[in-house]
């Protein structure tokens, strides 16, 4: 969850019971869905709200044979507003079903917003921990943002209907921004970390709480587990904390620092999402051994959260595939926001790199419509069309970087998006240019080493996800081609491009409404 001083939540007048507020939200969403006429950019196989606004994925969990994805949700407009929890479920990570809204704000513990959180399964019930958000009347010296945030819990026996149990952790003194709890069990105890921002120094931090009873937390007993070394960073959002690698004391913190200064090609999004790795045992400090690294190089990747796959072994991840304060053209059609595909994480202990690959279940997205992309030498200042109308497709192709001589070569999606090798800056570039939507600019990474540039690309109606050389780098970005401007072409400028070929699949529409 993220909110800015300039984006203060509107006044919210709760009425009725929680159940009534949920039903009202669902009625509003259904009515808006029925009246929406343009689905130009609505995803075929990515999760997006029925209508209204979506941001952080929350409470990701596998529970009773279903994957549950909740998300920050404003049902009443395509702008951020009083935060609810939207809900989707899937048996296989491929086919998804919209469920009714799970949480609506307006109770004593969460009057102005049900902010982000996490889910745990305990004694065959799902417990979701989330931040209850309050907008206060006026700012004070010790509370310049005029908010109050505390951690709350709700419980469900079926994963669909939730009973709120109220606040369990109140903010320590000196913390106003205090949100996005992550809860896990370790060594017979329950642990919670929250992102925080202290009032005196405006530094992003990670606060740790512990308890033996999942519903009773002693919030007077807490620890600052981590603190930013970068003084520009004023807040750490959406912390996810888990064991990585072969030793249980090696912990990876996946989080969203706010306030990082852009530097050359790095940290170019409004806010970042990345990770640090260090050593922690309960009761002790967390010793960071690997400095902050961005997890995804694209324009639109934030609030990533991880969960365990049904096999209990693979750690999976989904993120919000948008960026704060970025123009969102879908608002004109009554909705905004979508999530990335689920990805599998793997960690290289030698290099400290966390990689993402598409979840193996995603082969289930493929239709029988499979095409071989032939080996192709694209001549100087030429292009070859491989798809006339690239809507929902997966392609897995490679370029021979040794034999390609072009100054610029790669893929064009319509006239507005290009994924290309830039021989000038020696970078792989994802550029989008939609000036009519005020979206323009590129994200890039260093050229991968080696002979082949392997590009595993997922394109949906308004997003592109690129997995480079088996996850050495990934790009997640929204793209907004006009109808009729979706040709997919391989191109070469000032030289030749040697495309080794590959495979392409049409993908199914897999989200039911």
């Amino acid at each position, binding site marked *: 969850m993220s909110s800015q001083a300039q984006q203060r939540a509107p006044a919210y007048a709760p009425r009725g019971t929680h159940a009534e507020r949920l039903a009202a939200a669902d009625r509003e969403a259904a009515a808006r869905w029925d009246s929406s006429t343009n689905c130009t950019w609505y995803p075929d196989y990515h999760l997006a709200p029925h209508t209204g606004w979506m941001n952080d994925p929350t409470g990701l969990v596998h529970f009773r044979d279903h994957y549950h994805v909740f998300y920050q949700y404003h049902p009443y407009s395509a702008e951020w507003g009083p935060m609810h929890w939207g809900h989707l479920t899937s048996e296989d990570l491929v086919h998804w079903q919209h469920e009714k809204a799970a949480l609506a704000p307006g109770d004593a513990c969460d009057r102005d917003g049900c902010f982000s959180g996490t889910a745990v399964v305990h004694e065959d019930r799902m417990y979701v921990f989330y931040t209850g958000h309050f907008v206060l009347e006026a700012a004070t010296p010790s509370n310049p943002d005029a908010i109050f945030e505390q951690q709350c819990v709700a419980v469900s026996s079926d994963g669909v209907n939730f009973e709120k149990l109220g606040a369990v952790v109140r903010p320590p003194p000196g913390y106003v921004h205090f949100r996005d709890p992550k809860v896990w069990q370790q060594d017979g105890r329950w642990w919670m970390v929250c992102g925080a921002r202290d009032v005196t120094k405006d530094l992003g931090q990670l606060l740790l709480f512990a308890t033996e009873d999942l519903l009773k937390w002693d919030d007077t007993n807490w620890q600052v587990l981590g603190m930013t070394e970068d003084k520009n960073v004023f807040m750490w959002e959406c912390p996810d904390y888990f064991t990585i690698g072969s030793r249980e004391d090696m912990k990876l913190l996946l989080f969203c620092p706010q306030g990082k200064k852009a530097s050359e090609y790095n940290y170019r999004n409004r806010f970042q999402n990345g990770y640090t790795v260090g050593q922690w045992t309960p009761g002790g400090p967390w010793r960071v051994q690997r400095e902050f690294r961005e997890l995804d190089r694209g324009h639109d990747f934030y609030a990533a959260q991880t969960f365990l796959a049904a096999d209990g072994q693979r750690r999976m991840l989904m993120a919000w595939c948008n960026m704060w304060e970025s123009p969102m053209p879908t608002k004109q059609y009554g909705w905004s926001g979508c999530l990335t595909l689920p990805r599998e994480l793997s960690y290289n202990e030698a290099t400290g790199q966390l990689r993402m690959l598409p979840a193996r279940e995603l082969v289930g997205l493929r239709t029988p419509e499979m095409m071989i992309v032939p080996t192709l030498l694209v001549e100087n200042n030429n292009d070859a069309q491989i798809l006339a109308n690239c809507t929902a497709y997966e392609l897995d192709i490679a370029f021979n970087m040794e034999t390609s001589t072009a100054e*610029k070569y790669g893929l064009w999606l319509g*006239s507005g998006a*290009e994924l290309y090798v830039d*021989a000038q*800056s020696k970078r792989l570039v994802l550029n989008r240019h939609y000036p009519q939507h*005020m979206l*323009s600019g590129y994200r890039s990474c260093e050229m991968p080493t080696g002979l082949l540039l392997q590009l595993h690309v997922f394109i949906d109606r308004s997003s592109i996800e690129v997995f480079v050389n088996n996850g050495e780098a990934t790009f997640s970005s929204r793209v907004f081609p006009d109808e009729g401007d979706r040709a997919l072409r391989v*191109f070469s*400028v*000032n030289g030749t491009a040697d495309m080794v070929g590959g495979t392409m699949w049409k993908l199914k529409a897999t989200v039911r409404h």
Partner: protein
Amino acid sequence: MSHEQRIEEANNAVLAIRKSVDKEFYPHYHIAPYARSMSAPCGMIYFKGLYHVFYQHQPFAEESGPMHWGHSTSENMIHWRHHPIALAPGEDWDRDGCFCGSSVAYDDRLYVFYTGHHWLTDIADDSQIYQVQCLAISENGFNFEKRGIVVKPPAGFSHFRDPYVWFQDGRWWMVCGGRDSKDQGQLLLYSTDDLEDWDDSTFMILSKSEDRNVYMWEHPCFFPLQRHQMLMFSPQGMQPEDYMFRNRYQTGLLMGLWRPNATFSVTSAFKKLDLGHDFYCAQTFLTRDGRRVFIGWLDMWDTNMPTKQHHWTGMLSLPRVLLVDEATGRIRTPPIKELESIRGNHQYLPRQTVRDNSQVRLLFDCTSYEVRVLFDMEKSTAEKYGLWLGRGLEIYVDEQSKRLVVNRHYPNYGISGYRSYALPAQALLLVHAYFDMSSVEVFVNEGEAVLSTRIYPARKDRTLSLFAANGTAHITRGDIWALNQSVMQ
């Protein structure tokens, strides 16, 4: 067929196809061929009250064919008139083309030195050629009498072209670009007392490429500027490196020292004259008042040229002044000040901030315009900010690579890519852009750097806007002028 008859035949071919020329991308204030193709400017000179610009011209096709000399004149370097073709190939010595050359005025007559080109086989094979330097003379600058070969190539030089002739220390001098049997680009020097009689058995190699990749030096101009001796030329074979030398061929300068009978002692690194996509074969001349001015071909070999289907290709750059700062040796190439005479309606841009992720429309239909914007780089926070022309052209400060970028994207024509310039250290950045129907010339900080690029916006896609992406852009001030047509259409 006589020379006059061949000229008439060529002119008739141009006039015939002229009726089919599509003017969508035809320039309003840049020199372009009446029809068919144009490449290198040559023989440029101020003579009898007129600036003469000749250019390599193919009257019978847009692509390949024997080179003629096309011709334009102006009284002021701004208003240009088309003239009949000046030189047509077909004599023994220039059977397969009248290639580039230069002019000198002497005894009230115009002497044109040019390269006569021969294919040694029946097909055009660049490794089977014979090139000689030839002379043609005109009393009036329009009708030329060919005088034949004046300089034959030395042994081992098949590529031997683009003579540049000047008068110094009581003698005439000629340099030519050459490519020897080792495929090394070099500059050959000849000298004579008699402008019409050259002893080509006596020559010296004035300079050679130090870059082994460079196999040919084209279009040499060799002249003094303040206390420097300048070589303006177009090397072929430079390998691209990072952002540099990305065009197929380059055009630039070497500075050094030279005295007659000595070799050219180079004192500076090669400096490109233009960092854009489309600039080649620059040639220089002196104005009536003694300014060193140059014009280049505003296109590039081996690139897609959408105007072929419009029955014309090629155009020339604006005339630019070559200036060298005496103290620092820094080169600047601003446009000639005469361009102010074609300014029409003026629009002043007051100090303003372009808000985060927004654009400010400046012109609804930016056809022929001059736009000057002073950006405050210190106050601007945007990741990317500058000017958009339609969807296909952006001129912007790129905070990521710290460069000023000219990016064009016309995928329907197979044209895409950027050229860029490392941002200077100072706080203010003056972007001075000349837009014509299919070109933009961007002068940065009064010609400290120039980027020239052909652009092909659709008719309804010529909106010009200021923009700022992911942050704000601060404009200290700006001016926009509509530019009146000054080239005969």
